[in-house]
């Protein structure tokens, strides 16, 4: 009876100051990202004080952090769409692995030109995303189970295709040669001489963030993704295109995992089948720290980007302190949980 009405008077919620311009929702996002930036600043100060002089807070190291965060950030931006629409994708790490191996095998072993090997990997991403979305929307299987399963199917495919071998265009199988111009073009995707020594992958990351940011905050697609994720039942009654949009979210997520895989391959120069398996935690952590709600309907590109940055700074700072890898796990786990606890706290404050 009174279950779905709130007893608070509208005036009390408005707090008098929340005008149309600076809305409650924007305020929440602002608080969240602002809080994250403060956390990032604190972490920077702490590591600057703890580390040896001229190791942490240098241009070279900062650019290194930007590069190291880019893989996680690009994949996490894709996952953000899936999370916003109220679903989960656990298969992106394996998709990353499949994409690198497909590019590597098609190019180095089968002798395809790189210009066909890359579209092949993206086509596979569209396939995997579509299968995920089909099972979730048409067969109505929970996405957690679907992507847990398809992740293993994808991983198995990767092992099968790669024959569990590491691939490097510098060492093609006997009798094959990889054209040098293609090698240069491909490696150029992640290695360019940019002003200030900016890493090329960071440019890709910013580009992706701009696109996802536009989608989430400025497009009808993003507006409806939030509506669908916030209340699927209401979205169905409002006739929002739920199936179509979930397909789009899963496909974009797989394609961004593929993009990240391609850029890492181009940067590192070689690829192995188990690449991407370790992405699950940091990518999810970046999305969660960034303020997206796992129950759907909430998430921003700037938040996810900041989450990835925070994790990268922590990993980098601890590595510089030679703290041992276990400490990095401790800290990133604790930070992820703390972010959610803090979120609950600020939300209760707003009420």
């Amino acid at each position: 009876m009174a279950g779905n009405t709130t007893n608070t008077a509208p005036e009390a919620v408005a707090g008098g100051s929340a005008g149309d311009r600076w809305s409650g929702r924007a305020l929440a996002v602002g608080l969240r990202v602002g809080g994250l930036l403060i956390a990032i600043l604190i972490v920077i100060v702490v590591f600057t004080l703890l580390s040896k002089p001229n190791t942490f807070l240098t241009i070279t190291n900062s650019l290194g952090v930007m590069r190291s965060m880019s893989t996680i950030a690009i994949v996490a931006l894709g996952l953000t769409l899936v999370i916003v629409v109220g679903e989960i994708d656990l298969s992106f790490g394996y998709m990353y692995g499949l994409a690198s191996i497909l590019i590597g095998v098609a190019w180095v072993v089968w002798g395809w030109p790189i210009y066909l090997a890359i579209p092949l990997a993206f086509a596979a991403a569209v396939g995997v995303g579509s299968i995920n979305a089909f099972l979730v929307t048409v067969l109505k299987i929970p996405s957690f189970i679907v992507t847990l399963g398809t992740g293993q199917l994808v991983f198995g495919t990767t092992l099968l295709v790669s024959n569990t071998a590491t691939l490097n265009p510098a060492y093609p199988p006997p009798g094959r040669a990889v054209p040098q111009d293609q090698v240069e073009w491909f490696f150029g995707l992640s290695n360019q001489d940019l002003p200030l020594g900016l890493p090329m992958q960071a440019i890709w990351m910013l580009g992706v963030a701009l696109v996802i940011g536009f989608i989430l905050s400025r497009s009808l697609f993003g507006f409806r993704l939030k509506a669908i994720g916030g209340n699927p039942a209401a979205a169905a009654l409002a006739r929002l295109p739920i199936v179509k949009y979930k397909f789009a979210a899963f496909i974009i997520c797989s394609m961004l995992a593929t993009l990240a895989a391609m850029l890492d391959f181009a940067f590192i120069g070689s690829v192995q089948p188990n690449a991407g398996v370790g992405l699950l935690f940091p990518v999810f952590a970046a999305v969660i720290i960034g303020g997206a709600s796992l129950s759907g309907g909430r998430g921003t590109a700037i938040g996810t980007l900041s989450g990835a940055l925070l994790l990268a700074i922590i990993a980098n700072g601890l590595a510089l302190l030679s703290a041992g890898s276990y400490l990095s796990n401790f800290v990133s786990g604790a930070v992820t949980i703390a972010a959610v606890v803090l979120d609950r706290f600020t939300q209760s404050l707003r009420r």
Partner: protein
Amino acid sequence: MTALPPAVAGGSTTVDEVPERGLRIRGLRKWYGDTRALDGLDLDARPGEILGVAGPNGAGKSTLIKILAGETSADAGEIHLDGRPWDTATERDRVAVVHQEPQLFPNLTVAQNLMVGREGTRALVRRLDEQERSLMADLAILEYADHEIGSVPLAIQQRVEIGRALARDARVFLFDEPNSALTQEESTDLFRRMHLLADGGNVVVLVSHRIAELAEHTDRVALILDGLCTSVLADDALTPDGIAAGLVTGQAIREPEEQIVVHLGDDAATALRLDEWTHGAGEFHDIDLHVRAGEIIAIVGVEGSGARELVRSIAGFERGSGRIEVGGRSGGSAAASGTSLVSADRQTSLFTNLTIGDNMVSRLNREITAGGVALRRSRMREISHRLREQFRVKAPSVQLPIGSLSGGNQQKVAIAAAIVKRPEVLVLEEPTRGVDIGSKREIYRLMREYASQGHAVIIYCTEVPEVFEAADLVYIVSDGRLSEPLIVMNYADVEALARAVTRLERHAGAPPAP
């Protein structure tokens, strides 16, 4: 009708003393914020009788059941059972609630369900004892002992619920709309068991919207309005007409002169036409309906009658076969593009993670974008500000979360979001459920305004006062059949309309002659 003063309503004694046997409720109060669900309710239930409880939605029936079932506690008031004070929150074993959806463990068997809570102290799982076996035999559920609850029919589940209660010596049996999903045969059997329980000296309470059944099966009917027991009908006063009239007394807020008279010529355009329209799961059959633009049509029917399914099927949210024509175009896609549905439950009509303004424009596409891609925030603001004025949504800003609004204002936003899409047929399920009087008026005004702009409005109602105030025509659905329409304007007062509706409900609801 015997209208007793509330203080002694339901009591047969003039001296208010605690009876030695039976249930006695005095001054029961439960407020949710400003909403007075129960406002000092008095009620007596005697052992050996079936007490009916009737009242419109939001009158306090469900709160009363929740308190008796121990699911929530009252703010004030006292409850006595068999002469002793009864703390419903801790002494839950004394009451059994039989819902439309039994509260059992679907993954356990019938026998295990019967034993839950009384498994004994031994580590080994015990078997049914003799007493339990005979109890189950009496209820005709022994043969299902090893079936999982999830796999047996609803009627069996309800009997298991009764059996559980009997096995732990419950005294009070609350039946809350128990038969809305049962077949005729199953519900006859359920009533037989209710009478057996009463004959056994238990306190039996039946909460129902089905007026004919209340009149037939209960000894007395308590009418609950606005959190109070306003009268108790018994003996000669206990007739379907009496209950129907009692339920709507003082409920209409329309003044006679306010009555809106609509004259539609025969040339008014057809907004909706159904021919031999039949539900995919058999909840209604062969419905022929013709709705003209400019009309507000009410479709009335209790849960399980098929009325709700009919209304939802018009908007394409239940499967139907036959012919549907919306705005001159036929077929499912015409129905999908020409209708908008607002569900009864605000949990499924609003997006709690969006602002008031975003909720208002959530169904739009071209109107709020450049080419269907980029949002035009200024357009969204413009539209939501206009809707806030037009619908008189009491919000200091449309950028606030939707949850900051009262129930009535939330409902206005939900309806605004559907209307701004300009559907030819606007479909509303219980448009003012849980809404305050002021917002009710606004919502009726908005419905009328939208209809007068040349659209059809179809509302699913469970309350006659709503029909009286809002609709031009009313159809009654019982057992999946549609009645002839009643012209609301022809009824001078809501009591007269209520009697007419009840009569049609009974006629259409009568079991087909063999």
